[in-house]
């Protein structure tokens, strides 16, 4: 990760975003964006999971600790979950992790949660564009537990 950051210093800053996509809706929506050749920034690195409910809050912390500039979690629309309620499980966890990260001083916009169905290729592209813009505006992730008042970085 470090090496890429050096490289991009001179160019326009291009964030790297870990994207957790559920297999049934959002991953299919992302495929549909491809089929429709709907262009979006090459910023996401996809990790396919069966369901957004599979996403352990730990993963979000891990991604941020590993230098990802942002995290996108995308699942089925409420009520559409292939596994009935996995996306609600995800939503509960996500609300929690978001307030925790806020508490430790991480910019809220680095992590996003969205719903994209299998029929929404265009929407998927819009979501990625939106996330990329928000994360780009914040600049590179300088470490999740960095303490601003001169304390040691704790990782």
């Amino acid at each position: 990760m470090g090496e890429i950051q050096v490289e991009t210093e001179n160019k326009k800053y291009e964030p790297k975003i870990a994207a957790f996509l559920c297999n049934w809706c959002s991953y299919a929506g992302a495929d549909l964006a491809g089929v429709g050749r709907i262009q979006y920034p090459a910023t996401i690195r996809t990790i396919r999971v069966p369901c957004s409910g599979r996403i352990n809050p730990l993963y979000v912390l891990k991604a941020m600790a590993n230098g990802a500039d942002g995290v996108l979690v995308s699942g089925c629309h409420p009520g559409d979950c292939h596994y009935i309620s996995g996306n609600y499980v995800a939503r509960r966890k996500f609300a929690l992790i978001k307030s925790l990260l806020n508490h430790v001083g991480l910019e809220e916009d680095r992590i996003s949660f969205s719903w994209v169905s299998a029929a929404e290729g265009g929407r998927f592209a819009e979501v990625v564009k939106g996330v990329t813009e928000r994360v780009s505006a914040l600049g590179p992730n300088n470490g999740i537990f960095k303490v601003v008042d001169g304390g040691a970085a704790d990782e």
Partner: protein
Amino acid sequence: MSQNKIGSVLIVGAGIAGIQAALDLAESGYLVHLVEESSAIGGTMPMLDKTFPTNDCSMCILSPKLVECGRHLNVRTYTNSQVVKTEGEAGNFKVTIKQKARYIDLEKCTGCGACAEACPVKVDDEFNQGLGKRKAAFKQYSQAFPNAYGIDEKNCLYQTRGKAKGKDICLKCVKACQAGAIDHQMEDKEFEVEVGSMILNPGFKIFDASRLDYYGYGKIKSVITSLEFERLLSASGPFDGHLVRPFDQKEPQKIAWIQCVGSRNAKINNNYCSGVCCMYAIKEAVIAKEHSHIPVDTTIFYMDMRTPGKDFEKYYNNAKNNQGVNFIRSRVYEVTEAKDDSGDACIRYSTEDGKICEDQFDLVVLSVGLEPGDSSKELAQMLDLKVNKFGFAELEPLSGVNTSKAGVFAAGAFSGPRDIPETVMQASAAAGAASALLSDERGTLVSEKEYPPELDVVGDVIRTGVFICHCGVNIGGVVDVPSVVEYAKTLPTVAYATDKIYACSQDAQASIKALISEQKLNRIVVSSCSPRTHEPLFQETLKEAGLNAHLFDMANIRDQCSWVHMHEPEKATEKAKDLTKLAIVRASMQQPVQPIFMSMNHTALVIGGGVAGMTSAVSLADQGYEVHLVEKDNALGGVARRFSTGFRGEDMKAFVAGLIDQVSNHPNIKLHVGVGIKDVGGFLGNFTTTLENGEQLAHGVALLTIGGQEYKPKEYLYGQDDRVMTQIEMDEAIYNHDPKVDNAKNFVFIQCVGSRSDENPYCSRTCCTKSVKLALKVKKKNPGANVFVLYRDMRTYGYYEEDYEEARRIGIIFVRYSENAKPVLSKEADTLVVTVTDHVLDRPIEIEADLVCLAAAIKAPADGKKLSKWFKIPLNAEGFFLEAHMKLRPVDFSTDGVFMAGIAHSPKNMEEVVAQAKAAAGRAGVALSQDQVESAGLNAFVNKRKCTACGTCEAVCSAKAVTVDMVNRVAVVNDALCKGCGACASSCRCGAISLRGCTNEQIVEMLNSL
């Protein structure tokens, strides 16, 4: 019908129809004999570059099917073969097949191509439409099955000059072949097979454009056919996908398409619409723009733009409004060679208002129509089948697939021009029909596939093999594939990495298998397209090589990389490397997973008792399965009860009554009429549906055939004056001898009411034909009547073109209006006045109407949303059911065990509804024929040592698969119930529960490598 039925089926023609029918039948327990005239299976699809309306690469979506069909144990494929004789009757036919000598032994040939390299004879390559050359020793296309060469005896030097005289002329191929596969003494052979049924799908041929000399085809070099253009676009084509003129390699900047070449032409007795050309021309124009690195100006010359299929209208609008394709409504007089020696062609045409214009183009593409193939005619003659005046097979009315001979079914273009999804639908329908005929013999002639014993890889050093796919130019055109390969080689565990032109092709599978054993690979990663479509194919290859199917992962560097970052090759390459790395990390940590088998309930539930539902129910019941048919209305029949006649003059009332009779008396069908559905639960093999009356139905599959709704017009005084009616209402009025119709003198039909509008941006498909039929009815009954049809594009596709022509001939007046100047209906005193601007006269005309018939749109069903929630199935933007794949899985949902048919999928006519309903029943039959449901086994599992029996997992599990054993104080997963969502694993406080194939360790390691 024969008493001695045979559980095997003959399929003639191995295009997409033959392949689909073969797979459906072979999967459901029948032995298939697949006869193909050429040297490889695939038909026309491999020649196409992309397919509309999804722009999917044709080869890529077909390839998995080729492989599956090619290696299916119960499909016997005979290439270079023809049926020469048949005898017997439905249930028991004897068929004589003649197989021409290939001169290369299929068993020995490795497909290496050394023979072709050595062969000195070059001839025009038919596969490339004569645009390139091939040798006399050749393979049709690189992904062909069988993956073997053949020798063309008409051009081989030895066969033509040496063999008869006993001289050893040439024979370079024999020397070149290391495998000793070449046998020039091979002889044609004839053999007999016994089958219970036949499915005929010999395909079509394209219209020979040189028959119409005013288009200059064959004389002017820059005039080519649409199929030639497909080959120009194709990455595997004669110019490797570089869009150039074949004769001077100039990159065209201005390209024209001329529609209806050989279609809609009564002078040459081709008075039918080929149905596919409008869409393929738009597609070619869009792809040409996308494909070329210089701006390309594209123009389509057409009479009516016919885009009535699902999502076609949106595709057309996108081409017109966003992609800048020009559409000129015109008649083309002639195409001549440009006088400036540029090699260009000039098109002289007249526009709608009679102006004569001329324009010069770098390339002119003729959108050639579809005609019956030569072998189709022979086949029909041999079997004494009824054909229509164009030479296509004539199907029994409202049967979808039945030819005039019992036990013989038709699919694809054999019975008329049709596009790929319709062809696939018909193939599944024919397979279902054959299966119903032979249901007693299911499973009698098939054998089960045996895999080599699984290699024990636990504890072995991890050796990952990485395969990066170019996908023609789909990936390779954007992503620097070789650099991804080099990068992969540097990653931990990677023992081998290489690239593949098409990783999904038969030869690539063979090579992956060979490399697994040569390189002792125990993990495989493929970077190509979407695992959603291709994972099963590669996993099958792993199993055949003795590896557990889960020692595998895929990186999606096409749909989610090269296709969506087309203008950023460097970033796309960077992303492809990262995605490949993630897949390698995941795969390297994969452990073998054993599948889990669950019981299969062999009962089907059909929801909706209209024509589609009843047809599906009868077909499934005939296949031997129990069926519950649920209809919320108090009577069966759906909207069809309101129709008097079908599009081919069928008595609709009698047809519906016949179906009701069949479903009411069939021993395998249980009716639930007048009751809705309250709830649905379960999954393939084990669904439980609760009816509103509390009754619970257990079933293994579900078919959703809930129909649609007629749009209630808000426009044209509908509902305010009873002389304004919809098509269905007018049909009823005619049937009931309503004086409003009987006494009317002036009839006005207004098309596209609520269709092709902002509210419903699709075409309702059936209304043009329906209006023409109704107009003909009133005009024939009362020849003195003035009948006007106000339309935007007349979409009388297929044979309905004849009705349109007849209508014009007997004096029905067709007036085109444009989208921006819709007709106006006003009431002056008690007189209805329609005002419309005529395009030819270019001035408004007023018609005093006694009766106005509105072609009201067909809308999506109201209950779609409910079913969508219950069965976890997607709807498209307009509320119609969204199929698993628009081309090749037209009746399947992406949720296993749920199928669709009828209007709820998209608007269509009765004949098409019947075909689709049979197709859904055919596909559902394939699922029901399985003894057990196999699940991958990617379930949750518990580490007992870590578990504290807190019960969080039990609380979050919506499948009720996890329970806490309070005796042993540990959580337990029920594998039959677990669906593998992983909510428990992400919620476990002590990390005791995880998910096979997606463990915490794997994901964390993937994140670490980010």
